C-alpha cells in the first residue's frame, strides 16, 4: 500500500506545449453526451460544468472534454454539443466559459475535444447524409452505429474545406471560452480517421492514395486549428488503429502517421487511443507499446489511453515507456478519491475499476445518452467522504453477502449502523465471485477484495456458513433487516435436474448430466466432451458466454443454443465483440433462434423459434443458463412478522450489478427516512 516510487512519477508536473499540468493523470470523456435536451439541445449545460468541476476538484491534471461536433452532418443526438459555425457563438461560448472557469478554480486544465464522426454519425438526428472520404459504408468488422450505417456521401473538395473551417471556428470558440487546449480527434473510426485509413479512403485526388494524401485533411485541420488559437493553447491530435478492419490502419501504422503529422511542428502532443473500448478481458496497459512507439516517432509528448485499472505499475509507463500523460478515466470513475489517495501516500483502499463497461460505456452511449459514470460510484465526486451517520448505532442485519448485501453492509456501516452480515456459503461475493471465474474476467474479483477491505475497515461482523432462517433473525432481533438473498437458478419445466453452485449436478431422465452455469463456473460440473449450453430469453447477460468459454478452455466441444437472435444481448458491444472472437476461434458454435426443449438418449432436442423445425445435437452434457428466480421466501416471511424489513438485489427481481447497487442505495434512503421518523423497528 502507499505510493510507490513508480506511482510517484504520476504526480509530477508535466508540460504539453505551453500548458503545464499539475500531474500526469488525465480524464478523457468516454462519451459525447453532455449536452442538454429541450431548449438546451446541442449546448453545454450547467450539469456539464458541475461534472467537470467535480473531476477537477478530485485532482485530475488534465480533462479532455466531451466530443464536440463541429458540423451539422456530424451531430448525432440532442445531448451532443455542436460548436462549429452553424451554431451561434453565444450562448455557446458563455456556457463553456462557465465550464472552464469551474475547472480552473480547482486548478485543473481542460482541453476541448473536437470531432466529426463521419460514417459513425447517427443520421437519424439531423436527417442529413453521412459525410465521408468515399461513398462506402462502415467497413466489415467495425461497430455499426445507431441508424444502421448508411453509405456515405463522398465529400467534395469544397465540403472538405467547409469541415476544415468548421474545426477551426470551433477551436477559436474554445479559446475564447477559456479552454487550455484543443484535441483534434483523428481516431475511433471518425471522419478524420476515415481519411487516414486505406479501408475507408478510396479517393484518387489530393486527399487519398499514399500516406501524405490520406493525411492531408488532418494536416489542414491541425494547421487551421493552430492558426485559430495561436500559441498559448496546446494543440494535439488523437490517433488510434482501425478495429478489426482488413486493410485498415493497423497499430503498427500509427507511428508513421504520428511522425508525419508532427513534422510541420504545429502540434504539442499526440493522444493514442485503442481501436475498440477495452473490456475486462483486455490486458492491463493494452496498447501502451504502440503508444510508446508513437512517442518515439512523433517527438512530442504522448497521452496514452487504454486500460489502466491498477496504477501500481502505471509509473513504469512513464519511466520506461516514455509516455507523458496517462488516461485514468475509468480508475477515477471507480474511485473519485484516486488522486487524493495517491497524494496522501498513506495506506489506501482504491475502489477498483473492473472494466465491466456497463455504465461508463454501455448505458452512456445508448439512446438514453448520459455522461459516463461508474456502476459502483454514481457520480465523479467524493462519494466516499464522511457520510451522514444517521444509523446511530442501531443494529442492522444483512442476509446474503452477494453484491447487494455487501454494498448495503458497507454503506450502512459507514452510516453508523452496527452491521452483521450473514452468508450461507463459505465466501462472500455471491454471483460476482462466480463471474470472476469466467476466463479473462478475473478483474471482477477485485471488487470483492475491495468489499472485504471495506467491511474490515468499518467493523462489519461477517458470519460465513450461516444460513439464515426466520428463527435466526428473531433470535438476533435486529432493529432492521435487509434481505439480500439473491436468486436461484431458474429451471425449464422439462428439466428434472437439481444442481447449483453448491449442489451436485443431476441427471435427466435420459441419463444425460444436466447442470447449470453456476456449477460450471464453480468448477463443480462433471460433463462429458460434447456440451450443449441451453440459454433462455431471460439470460441475456455475460454468463452464457462465460460458461461457454470456460468449458471450451477445458477442452469441451460447446454448442451455445439461444432462442434470441444472439446470446448475451445485454452485454456491451465491445465486451461481446472480444468474447465472440475468442469463443468462435476456440470452436464454440452458436445456434441462434433455437430453444432447447428436452433431452433424450444422448441427444439434446431443440426447435427453431421461427420455423418450428426440430433439431437435435448429440451431447454428453447439458448446461442450463436459464436466468434466475428470486429467492425471497425469507423476505416475505419476515415481512409478515416484523417491521423494518427491506430487500435488495436479485431477491427483489433477478437483474444485474447495477440493479444490486441501486437497490442498496434505495435501501439506504429508506433506512434514513425510517431513522428520522423514529419508525419502530423489530417485531410487529
Amino acid at each position, binding site marked *: 500500500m502507499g505510493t510507490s516510487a513508480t506511482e510517484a512519477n504520476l504526480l509530477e508536473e508535466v508540460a504539453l506545449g505551453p500548458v503545464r499540468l499539475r500531474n500526469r493523470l488525465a480524464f478523457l470523456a468516454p462519451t459525447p453526451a453532455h449536452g442538454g*435536451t*429541450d431548449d438546451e439541445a446541442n449546448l453545454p449545460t450547467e450539469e456539464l460544468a458541475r461534472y467537470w468541476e467535480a473531476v477537477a476538484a478530485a485532482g485530475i491534471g488534465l480533462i479532455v472534454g466531451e466530443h464536440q461536433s463541429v458540423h451539422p452532418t456530424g451531430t*448525432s*443526438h*440532442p445531448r451532443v454539443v455542436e460548436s462549429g459555425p452553424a451554431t451561434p457563438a453565444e450562448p455557446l461560448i458563455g456556457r463553456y466559459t462557465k465550464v472552464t472557469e469551474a475547472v480552473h478554480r480547482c486548478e485543473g486544465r481542460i482541453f476541448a475535444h473536437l470531432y466529426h464522426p463521419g460514417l459513425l454519425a*447517427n*443520421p*437519424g*438526428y439531423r*436527417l442529413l*447524409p*453521412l459525410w465521408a472520404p468515399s*461513398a*462506402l*459504408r462502415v467497413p*466489415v*468488422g467495425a461497430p*455499426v*452505429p*445507431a*441508424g*444502421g*450505417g*448508411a*453509405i*456515405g*456521401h*463522398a465529400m467534395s473538395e469544397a465540403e472538405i474545406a467547409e469541415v476544415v473551417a468548421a474545426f477551426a471556428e470551433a477551436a477559436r470558440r474554445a479559446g475564447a471560452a477559456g479552454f487550455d487546449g484543443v484535441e483534434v480527434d483523428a481516431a475511433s473510426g471518425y471522419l478524420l480517421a476515415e481519411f487516414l485509413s486505406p479501408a475507408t479512403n*478510396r479517393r484518387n485526388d489530393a486527399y487519398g492514395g499514399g500516406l501524405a494524401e490520406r493525411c492531408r485533411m488532418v494536416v489542414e485541420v491541425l494547421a487551421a486549428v493552430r492558426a485559430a488559437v495561436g500559441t498559448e493553447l496546446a494543440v494535439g491530435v488523437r490517433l488510434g488503429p482501425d478495429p478489426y478492419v*482488413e*486493410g485498415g490502419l493497423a497499430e503498427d501504422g500509427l507511428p508513421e502517421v504520428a511522425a508525419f503529422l508532427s513534422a510541420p511542428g504545429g502540434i504539442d502532443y499526440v493522444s493514442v487511443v485503442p481501436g475498440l473500448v477495452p473490456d475486462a478481458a483486455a490486458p492491463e496497459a493494452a496498447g501502451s507499446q504502440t503508444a510508446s512507439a508513437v512517442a518515439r516517432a512523433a517527438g512530442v509528448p504522448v497521452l496514452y489511453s487504454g486500460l489502466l485499472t491498477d496504477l501500481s505499475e502505471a509509473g513504469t509507463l512513464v519511466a520506461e515507456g516514455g509516455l507523458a500523460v496517462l488516461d485514468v478515466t475509468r480508475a477515477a470513475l471507480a474511485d473519485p478519491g484516486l488522486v487524493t489517495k495517491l497524494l496522501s501516500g498513506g495506506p489506501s483502499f482504491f475502489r477498483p475499476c473492473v472494466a465491466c463497461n456497463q455504465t461508463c460505456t454501455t448505458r452512456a452511449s445508448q*439512446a438514453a445518452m448520459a455522461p459516463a459514470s461508474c456502476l459502483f460510484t454514481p457520480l465523479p465526486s467524493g462519494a466516499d467522504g464522511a457520510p451522514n451517520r444517521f444509523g446511530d448505532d442501531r443494529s442492522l442485519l444483512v442476509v446474503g453477502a452477494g453484491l447487494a448485501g455487501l454494498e448495503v453492509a458497507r454503506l450502512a456501516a459507514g452510516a453508523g449502523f452496527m452491521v452483521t452480515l450473514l452468508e450461507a456459503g463459505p465466501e462472500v461475493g455471491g454471483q460476482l465471485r462466480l463471474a470472476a471465474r469466467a476466463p479473462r474476467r478475473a478483474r471482477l474479483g477485485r471488487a470483492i477484495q475491495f468489499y472485504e477491505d471495506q467491511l474490515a475497515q468499518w467493523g462489519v461482523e461477517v458470519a460465513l456458513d450461516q444460513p439464515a432462517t426466520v428463527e435466526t433473525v428473531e433470535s438476533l432481533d435486529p432493529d432492521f433487516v435487509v434481505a439480500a438473498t439473491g436468486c436461484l437458478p431458474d429451471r425449464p419445466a422439462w428439466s428434472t435436474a437439481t444442481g447449483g453452485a453448491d449442489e451436485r449436478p443431476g441427471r435427466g431422465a435420459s441419463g444425460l448430466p444436466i447442470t447449470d452455469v453456476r456449477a460450471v463456473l464453480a468448477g463443480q460440473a462433471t460433463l462429458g466432451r460434447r456440451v450443449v449450453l441451453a440459454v433462455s*430469453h*431471460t439470460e*441475456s447477460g455475460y454468463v452464457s458466454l462465460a460458461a461457454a468459454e470456460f468449458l471450451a478452455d477445458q477442452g469441451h466441444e460447446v454448442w451455445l443454443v439461444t432462442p434470441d*437472435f*444472439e446470446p448475451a444481448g445485454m452485454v456491451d458491444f465491445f465486451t461481446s465483440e472480444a468474447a*465472440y*472472437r475468442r*469463443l*468462435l*476461434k476456440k*470452436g464454440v458454435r452458436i445456434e*441462434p*433462434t433455437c430453444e432447447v426443449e428436452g433431452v433424450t438418449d444422448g441427444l439434446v432436442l431443440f426447435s*427453431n423459434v*421461427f*420455423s*418450428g*423445425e426440430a433439431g437435435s445435437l448429440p451431447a454428453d452434457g447439458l448446461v442450463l443458463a436459464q*436466468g434466475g*428466480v*428470486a429467492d425471497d421466501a425469507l423476505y*416475505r416471511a419476515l*415481512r409478515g412478522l416484523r417491521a423494518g424489513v427491506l430487500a435488495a438485489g436479485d431477491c*427483489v*427481481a*433477478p*437483474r444485474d450489478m447495477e440493479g444490486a447497487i*441501486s437497490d442498496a442505495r434505495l435501501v439506504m434512503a429508506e433506512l434514513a427516512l425510517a431513522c428520522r421518523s423514529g419508525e419502530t423497528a423489530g417485531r410487529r
Partner: protein
Amino acid sequence: MAPNPFPNLFSPISIGHLTLRNRIYSPPHAPGFTDRFFMPSERAIAYWEAKAAGGTAMVSSGVTPVHSSAIRVVPFDNPRFCEVYGSAAERVRAHGARFVVQLWHGGAQVGMGTRWAPSPYATPSEWRVAHAMDKAEIKDVIAAFGRAAARVKEAGCDVIEIHGAHGYLLTEFASALSNHRDDEYGGTLENRARFVAEVIESVREAVGSEFTVGLRFSADEFVDGGLTIEESQEMLARFSAQGKLDYLDISVGNYHTEETIIAPMYFPLGAFVHVAAAIKEVVSIPVIAVGRIKDPAQAEEIVANGYADMVALNRAIIADPEFANKAREGRSEEIRWCLGCNEACWGRSYMGLAEGIACVVNPHLGFERETSLVPAEHRKRVVVVGGGPAGLEAARVAAERGHSVSLFEKSESLGGQLNKAAKAPLRVDLADCVRYYSGEMARLKVDVHLGSEASADSVLEAAPDAVVIATGSSPALPPDVPGLESARVHEVREVYDGLEELGERVLVLAGEGHQQALSTAELLADAGRDVEVVSPQRFCGHEIERNTVVMLYPRLLSKGVRLTPMSWVRRVDGRSVTLVQIYSGGERTVEVDDIVVAAGGRANDGLAADLLGRVPEVHLIGDALAPRRLLYATQDGCRVGRSL
C-alpha cells in the same frame, strides 16, 4: 357539394356524456415528443392539434405512467401537469375534437428500473424478470390510478382511457399467461379480473359519474395460455354490466405477439376487426376497433356493418393527419396512405431517430409548425429530374407552394425503386406511396415527362430557375470481394425484372441490414430457387424493425432459405464462393449459380456536377446525394421543396 360518401363513418356518436363528431379515433400511442420529465413538449401538442384540425373526432395522448415503479418522476405529480395537458386539451377542442389521456403502468414489459407484475414474469424484448407485487404494492398502484384520474379531470381533459391492453400491468393481471398468483388476484377469471375492476373503480371514484372513461383491452393475446376472445368476452361483459365504463377500445396482443399490436404490412387490412366485433356482441357500451385500418371505405364498412362503433386509425393518421377531412370532403384519393412499414414510427430506434417518431411518407410529422407550407414569394420555374420518392416529394411541395414544376423521369413510370420493392412478397402496400404521388402530380398539375432521360442540355433548354437532381442510385457492387467479376453477379434491383435468368442456386450477399436482401431472398425462394443469405452482421436483417422481422423469418425459414450471419466473402472463383466466418476466421466454400448483391448502390450525381454554375440553383437529394432509406428521400424532397 357531393353527398357524404361515408355516412356511417361521419355520423356523430355519444360516448358517455360527450358527443363526438364522427367515428374516427386517433388511439393512444407515444410519439416520443417528451422532455426529460416525460412531459409532452410543444411538438407533442402541435402533433395532436394537427390530427384534430384534420377532422379526427377524438385524439389520445400516449402512455402516461401513474406510479413511481413505472417511472422515476410521475407526470401526474409534475406541477406543470395541468398547464401542459390542459393546454393540449384546449387546442384539440378548438378544432372540434376531444382529448384523451391514457393512464398506464408498464408492468413487466416496460419500466425504468425494477419491473412490477403479478408474478415473476419476463417478456420480450428485454426479458427482465419482474418483481411479484405484494398486496400493499397492489393497493398503492390502484390508488395511483385514481390520483392520476383526478388530475386529468382537474386539467380539463375530456376523456380518460385506462390502458388494459398490450400486455402491460392490467393485461398481466387479467391473463393466466402472466398471472400465477394464488391469492384473490389470481387463479379464476373473476380473480384475475379483480385488479382491472379495482382500477376502473378507483378511476371512476376519482372523476365521478359524468366523466367519460374507457378501457383499452387486449381481447386476444394470441399466445397459448393467454387471454382468448371467449375469456375476454366474459370479462368485458362483466365490466360493461358494472356500469363504470363508457366505452371499450378493443385491441390485441402483448409483447410476445407485438407484431399484432403494430401490425406490419404483412397483415391483411382489418386483421383484428373480428375481435372487436366479438366483444361488441356481448357489451352494451360503444366499442372501438383497431388494426390495419387505413382506407375510409374500409372504415365505413366496419361501422356500417356493426362490427364496431368507432375505428381507431393510428398510423393512417400519422401518415396523413388530414385523413378525416379528405375522406369527408370526397377527396379520398388525396389521402397519403400509410404503408405499414413501421420503419420510422414504431421502428424509429432502428433508424436512430433520437427525438421521437417520424414517418417515411409524411415528412412534416413532428414538425407540423415548422414545416407548414408557406407560399413561395417568387414563382420559379423548377425542373425536377427523377421521379422516385425524393423527386416526387420535392415536386409536390414546390408545386403546392406555387412554383411552376416539371418533372422528368427516365423510365415509363413514376415511383423509382418503390416499384421494385413493392414486388417483394407481401410488400405491395409500398405501391400506395406511388399511387399517392401520381395523384398529387395530377392534382397539382406538375408537368410530368415519362420516358424522358434528362441531360444537362435538355435541362438548360427548359431555362429553369432551380433544378432538383433526384436521379437516385445505380446498382453497384461492393468493393473488396476478390473475384466477384468472375461470377454471374446481379445487383438486387436487377433481379426484380430478370428472375428467369437466375440459375438454381443463388447466394445473396447482404451488404446492408435492412429489407433488400431478405425480401429478395424470399422472392427468389418463391420462384423455386435454393437461396442462402450471407451477412456480416450478428444476424441477418439486423436493421429491420422487430415486428417485421419476426414475421419475415418464419416465412424465409419455412421456404428453405438459409441464413448465414457473421460471415462475408473471402473470394469468388466462378461458381465457387469461399465464405469466411468473421469471428473465427473459419472458411467454407459453396457452389452457386448466381450471386445477388444487396449493398446499396452508387449515387447518380453526375448531372448535378454538369449543371453546377450553369443554373441559378442546383439541389441534389435522395439516393443521388447518398444511397439511403426511403425516409431520407421524402425528408430531402420536402426540405428542398420548402427552400425553393
